[in-house]
């Protein structure tokens, strides 16, 4: 296991620039172990770029990212061994069965044969894959694909689970089950980094919430902290809209007057 006292995610002064435009701008964020952290933001705010940097798919233009204490630039493989990533459009090999795919993921994580078999049986049961696990994934519906990918993500008992829009396309029962699983994972010490537009899911699950807009972290804390920051006691949706709107207005003022105050 990784260090049990240090934080699981450390994003320290990170920027990512796309052709001169910052997609993520000098972000600092620390997420402790066992926290279910939700990441919110409008479209194009920099959520996916941040997640891709956390997974090691993109490099920060500036700053440092550590996962479980491992610097992603210098110890990327060790950092990736401690985490799992479920993207919004998950990839499955069409010509593999669900079981073969899970076995392949177990092999990539270097799990011992017996342990892999034990874990495979566990996640297959957890995500109710038994009825279709031996069919080629090309025949799977969206929900079946999503469940298989989640099963593969939990196969090696990751210290960090990163999920991007996990509830899209799932039926209500699956959404309910997924929420339970995410909560259980966090209770058992797994850090969950959840990016979603489903504010009800976020409000129900998240220990803390980070709101990103135009690459900057504009809000961070519990729902009550965000309400205080927005000076608004309404729903998370209203708080979110107010905070992101304020940011846009502030930026417009700065651009038109040239004065940040």
């Amino acid at each position: 296991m990784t260090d049990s006292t240090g934080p699981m995610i450390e994003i320290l002064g990170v920027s990512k620039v796309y052709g001169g435009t910052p997609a993520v701008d000098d972000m600092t964020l620390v997420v402790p172990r066992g926290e279910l952290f939700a990441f919110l933001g409008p479209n194009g705010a920099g959520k996916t770029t941040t997640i891709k940097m956390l997974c090691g798919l993109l490099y920060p233009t500036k700053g440092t990212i550590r996962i479980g204490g491992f610097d992603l630039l210098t110890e990327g493989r060790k950092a990736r061994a401690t985490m799992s990533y479920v993207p919004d459009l998950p990839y499955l090999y069409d010509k593999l069965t669900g079981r073969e795919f899970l076995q392949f993921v177990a092999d990539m994580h270097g799990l011992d044969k017996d342990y892999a078999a034990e874990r495979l049986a566990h996640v297959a049961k957890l995500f109710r894959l038994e009825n279709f696990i031996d069919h080629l994934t090309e025949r799977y519906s969206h929900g079946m694909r999503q469940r298989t990918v989640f099963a593969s993500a939990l196969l090696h008992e990751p210290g960090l689970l990163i999920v991007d829009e996990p509830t899209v396309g799932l039926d209500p029962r699956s959404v309910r089950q997924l929420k339970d699983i995410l909560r259980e994972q966090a209770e058992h010490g797994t850090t969950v980094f959840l990016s979603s537009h489903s504010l009800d899911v976020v409000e129900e699950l998240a220990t803390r919430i980070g709101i990103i807009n135009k690459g900057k972290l504009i809000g961070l804390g519990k729902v009550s902290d965000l309400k205080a920051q927005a000076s608004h006691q309404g729903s998370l949706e209203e708080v979110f809209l107010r905070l992101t709107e304020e940011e846009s207005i502030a930026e417009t003022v700065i651009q038109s007057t040239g004065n940040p105050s």
Partner: protein
Amino acid sequence: MTGKPIEKKSRVHSVGADIFLRLGAKIAWNTWKGFSAFSYVRPLVIGVCSLIVVLFVFGVSYAGFRFLVDQKLPLGGNFVALLFDMLFLSLAGLLVFSTGLILHASLFDSAETAFLLSKPVDEDQVFAYKFFVAGSFSSWAFLLLGGPILLAYALSVGAGPIFYLLMPFFFVGFALIPGSVGAIFCLLMVNYLPKGRTLLVAMGVILPMLIGAFWIAGTLRSLRHGDIQMGEDLLQKTLGQVQAASLPVLPSYWISRGLRAAAFGDLNAAGWYLGLIWSHGAFAYLLAAALAKLAYRSGFDRLSVNPETKPSKTQAWIDRLFRWFAPRDRGLAALMLKDFRTFRRDPKQWGQVVVFLGLLALYFSNLKRMFPKEIEYPFQVGLGFLNLLSLTLLMCTYTGRFVFPQLSLEGRRFWVLGLMPIERKRMLMAKYWFSFYGSLFVTLPLVVLSDFSLNLPLSGMAIHFGLLVLISSGLSALGVGLGTLMPNFRETDPSKIAVGFGGTLNLIVGLVFLLLMLGLGAIPWHMSQAVAGPNGPAPGVWVVVTGGFILATILGLLTTFLALDRGCRALERMEF
């Protein structure tokens, strides 16, 4: 803030490259099982088609090699060595580009690699897996062409069993060298070329080919000095002109000499060349893998963050020009413009067309200067036919490569078109017209250039013009029609769609169509002119020429109609 990290050790072992071998084997096996469960016809047709190509190449090669052996031609051995040098040099060139291009798509533009890179596996392991997949894809032509030629050679010279035993090892070792070079080019370009990389990648293809073009042009220029006599003189002259292909530092030289040594039972020499090939192949691969370890992930990152196109609110001049030439029907023109934009914004695709057509234009425009003294009329006519053949063969290849995958590529975004108030068959017709106009636009000027350079009579020019229109129409219809009848909606890489079963079948059908068209429409005229006496062709021969052309016209129109009709019907019924 950060504590000392502790690695997860229990019940975990290091990951070896064997997991990707197992993955590849599983995918291959499941794909094969899918074939068998669905229908035995598909793998059977693949096998039969491949066998036909192999037998054809084998038959032609065997006849050629037997001719050399039986006639005991002077310098016959040198000629074969030179042939092999040139064959392997051109195959190596093709392998560099095809492996590089396929690797670029699979390393940097696929969902699978993003998935693999987020897992705890090393970059060079992912590279190795993708390299061997790309190598297998790009080497099939190498095996399909090189294999039967070498077998024909071995049989014609009575090679011993050692030749057959060593041949596969020569092939694989040799393919490693250009494949690795292509991979190194690909990684370097992605990592170190400045912005606007797509164009530069295309330039990376175009530039080396232009160098090759200048070499060919230089050879042609030197050929035009002095009279060219048939026989030994010509052979020696020709051998002298293409010596560059036989430089002993080239891997093509090693495989060519090694295989010939194996054919004649010279085990020492064969072993030496085999060792030379494998040591260089292994070294080149290690170099590529080491570079991948250093630069693959950074290249992936770089490609993700460099937007390559500038936003443009106005319509590009080239699109306005295209609209001007497009049909007046607005719906049809809009569909064609969409395909045109998609095509022109992918220089990796059209770069190859530009290079080959540029080479042909260079050659056609040099035809007159090559032969300062007037060449004899039968040769003019013969060259005219060969030029037409090369142009139409190129057209056949490119309709297979670019037109056939068109409908398959629409599959995932078909809802955009499918929900529009446009008849489905008009979508198909738009693709047909786009291909038809596009093929004619690039080939017609070239055939005119060739015919004028050769001073062909007006009747010959008219026949070439008519045949080009008919062949362009037929090949475009076949590409569109068969592409609709045999779509592959799962694949996003057009090159992989083109080399799949449907694409291969389309290529074969196109080739048969092309040969029939030329056989009916062009050969009677060319033969009659070539064997004509001083008073012109024999009386009555025009009946054969006209009859042949009419048959070719019927065949061209019928092929166009049937292919489009079947395609339209399939599209109407198609579920996306």
